[in-house]
Every structure is written in structure tokens, then in C-alpha cells.
């Protein structure tokens, strides 16, 4: 039995995210006003047999826990 899972990875709060800042500055140029606190992260989708292994996968490879937070869906 397998299940399809998603891991959302984002820069830790407090870590400067220049990608997010760049997107935030670009949006008003297209007429989108009132957007703030843009953060850019990463999405990993995977099919797993044993989803209990996911946290360890995240800690050891999918993220660098020093600089990134993750959420498993």
C-alpha cells in the first residue's frame, strides 16, 4: 500500500528570503497592490510505502533543518 504525500519546505522564519522579496517587489509592477510577507519555498511530492519514515527523510535529506521548516501533507 502506498500513499501520495506532499512535503512543503519553506525558509525558516527570520531567515532573509531574497526570492520572496524579489517577488514582492515585482508584483506592484504588474498592478497587484497590497501584497506583503512573500516567502518562496519548495514542494516535494512523493509516493511512499511507509509514511512514518517521512519526518526522518525531511530531517536528513529533503530539508536542512538549520534553515528550513517543513510540513507534511
Amino acid at each position: 500500500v502506498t500513499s501520495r504525500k506532499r512535503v512543503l519546505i519553506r525558509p525558516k522564519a527570520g531567515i532573509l528570503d531574497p526570492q520572496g522579496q524579489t517577488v514582492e517587489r515585482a508584483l506592484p509592477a504588474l498592478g497587484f497592490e497590497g501584497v506583503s510577507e512573500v516567502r518562496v519555498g519548495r514542494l516535494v511530492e512523493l509516493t511512499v510505502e511507509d509514511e512514518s519514515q517521512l519526518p526522518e527523510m525531511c530531517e536528513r535529506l529533503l530539508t536542512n533543518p538549520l534553515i528550513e521548516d517543513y510540513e507534511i501533507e
Partner: protein
Amino acid sequence: VTRFGVVRFPGSCDDVDALLAARRYGDGELLWHGDRDLKGVDAVVIPGGFSYGDYLRVGAIARFSPVMEAVAEFAADGGPVLGICNGFQVLCEAHLLPGALLPNTSLRFIARQVDIVVANAASPFTRAAAEGERLSIPVKHTTGRYYHPDPDGSVGDIAGVSNEAGNVLGLMPHPEHAVDPLTGSSDGGKLFESMALAQAPA
């Protein structure tokens, strides 16, 4: 004669310059990422480039290569390990150095000649230099913003970081690109010369 081992990952691109730099001060040979064997070398250089395509995060995949298991043991035994640029990133991911490297604030690739100041001339990587000496060495990277959660996040104005024991050093500047006056500076040779001196019998 000091034997330098230069690691080659798929995607390494400064391995040949590092090998040529090492051979000015000793013998040098390439160490293949898939081999757990360091061939009895006296010092290890992890060169710059884009190991495993920098997939996922810089250094994240390279960290699990067989050669890095051997490098971790070598470092634990006190062997000198110099990681340059991507090599620095790999050493951080491998937890042989503290901290992590983040994308440049500008998001731009930075390539320029910089002066680095020798803060400690007693290390195995700097003993051929003088304390306070300025070395002119190029940088070229996109992911060079050093981060350490303690004391206050990004640390400004540093070229590199060593482990507590002092035998593992990560550098963003590329000493291997500055070993001949023909390229504008030969100051980078001081690092390779230091590593060779460190291995010479007293």
C-alpha cells in the same frame, strides 16, 4: 612530499585547477566520489562546482557520497580538509562545519577579486602566511551567504569558517584560481603551501 587528494563529484568544475594548484606544492591526485578510498593522501581538497547539479540544495546530495564517508573519518582523525565554495557547502551539509550557506542577498552570481585578511596564521591552512596579511583571491558564487543560528544569523565579512579542532576549513574564495601571477595574483598558493608545510616532518 605532501599528497593532496582532490575530490571529483559529477558537476565539480574546479577540480582540475585545485589539482594543478596542489601539484605546485606537493603531489596531487583525484578522488572519485563513488570510491570510499582516500588512497592514503595527507590532505583533502573538496573543490568548487555544482556537485550533483546542486539538486535539492547545494551540497545536499554530495554529502551522502561514499567519498564523503571517508572524508568524515579522515577529518575526525585530524586530517586537514579544505572545502572551497561548493566544497564549503558540502562540508556544511555533512556537518563537518557548522552553519549553512544561503543564496546571495542580491540573488546574483558574484564574480570578483577580493582581499581576504589572514586572521590566524597558526592554522594548517595559513601557516605560510603572516597574521594580518591580505591575500587577493577571486570569489564566484551564487550561494555564499554564510548563516549560523548562533549568535545572530547571517555573519558578515567573513571568507571562511573552520571547525573547532581547526583541521577543517571552508572558504568561499577560490585560492586554486590564484596560484600564478599570470592570473593577477598568486596569493592563493599560500593556502596550498601551508597545507604542504603542515604535513612536512618537523
